[in-house]
């Protein structure tokens, strides 16, 4: 059970870490100052969440590693994040679409995790879900504004949705690791969240005048660590270079 729990906490922590890093790549480069501040705020929320999840993962593992060790000293094959969050930022609309798809799942998952029989998981989820409820307010609003905006913004959002939709399925894929934890009452069964997710996104995309892709084909291999996309390695070289070049550096 400990192995599965550690594995699952890595998934939660790595999702936050990788997505938080991706969002931080916009810092200083967003289309407008106010969005720059908003997106950097969100990035910081995710890095805060990472400290909580990876901190708990390190405790559960009990090998003397810290959250920082897990974040900075693992390589691509050790990462357990969803393929969705490691996708490059693309244009601003693509970043917002990636964020919305993630947020729509994330808020449901965290809501379920607040009822975990594991005390620390439940406590972290209760803290984190407050931030995430705002994240989805923001990303949903922007998807609608850009989708139902100008012909140019509409086209960019439709392209973003078509490109990112195949990464949605992985969020609802339940594997043996999750099965074990579901049976223990530690985590919600993510496959049961799909209906609520579909209802949320269908409503938003209808308002945003966007068309849902007809295929539900799903890329898998991120959260199992078996097949990350080529993008994750590049992200890690940026994120981890300081600790790799100057091991143990602090300030």
């Amino acid at each position, binding site marked *: 059970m400990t192995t599965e729990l550690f594995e699952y906490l890595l998934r939660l922590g790595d999702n936050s870490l990788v997505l938080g890093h991706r969002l931080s790549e916009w810092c200083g480069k967003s289309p*407008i100052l106010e969005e720059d501040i908003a997106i950097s705020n969100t990035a910081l929320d995710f890095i805060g969440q990472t400290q909580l999840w990876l901190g708990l993962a390190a405790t559960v593992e009990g090998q003397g590693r810290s959250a920082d060790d897990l974040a900075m000293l693992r390589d691509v094959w050790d990462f357990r994040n969803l393929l969705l969050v490691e996708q490059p930022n693309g244009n601003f609309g693509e970043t917002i679409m990636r964020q919305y798809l993630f947020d729509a799942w994330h808020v449901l998952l965290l809501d379920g995790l607040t009822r975990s029989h594991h005390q620390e998981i439940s406590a972290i989820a209760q803290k984190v879900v407050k931030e995430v409820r705002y994240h989805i307010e923001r990303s949903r609003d922007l998807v609608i504004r850009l989708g139902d905006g100008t012909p140019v913004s509409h086209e960019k959002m439709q392209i973003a949705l078509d490109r990112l939709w195949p990464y949605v399925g992985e969020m609802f894929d339940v594997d043996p690791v999750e099965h074990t934890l579901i049976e223990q009452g530690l985590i919600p069964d993510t496959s049961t969240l799909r209906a609520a997710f579909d209802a949320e996104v269908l409503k938003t995309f209808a308002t945003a005048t966007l068309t849902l892709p007809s295929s539900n084909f799903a890329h898998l291999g991120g959260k199992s660590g078996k097949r990350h996309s080529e993008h994750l390695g590049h992200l890690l070289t940026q994120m981890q270079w300081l600790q790799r070049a100057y091991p143990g550096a602090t300030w």
Partner: protein
Amino acid sequence: MTEPKAPEWPLWEVFIRGQHGASHRHVGSLHAPDAEMAIKHARDVYTRRKEGVSIWVVPTTAIAASNPDMKGPLYDPSDSKPYRHPTFFDIPKEIGTM
């Protein structure tokens, strides 16, 4: 590839109420396409450290300001009239702080 430069978003003045009972205070300004986005941006720019429980945004163009050249006629007449301060009055204890 150069796209035509979009016109800048309008400017909004932001007012935050720090706690229940206190009045909204001007904290700064920001750009946003409409009031709803202005409130969201204000939340991200001005309330990250729990500064507020309520946000007002007002289009900057809706604010009428006094003319700096009129400083003399407007404010000079209240020079040397300290008796206009309420400190000259005794406030009964039961009233408390005003």
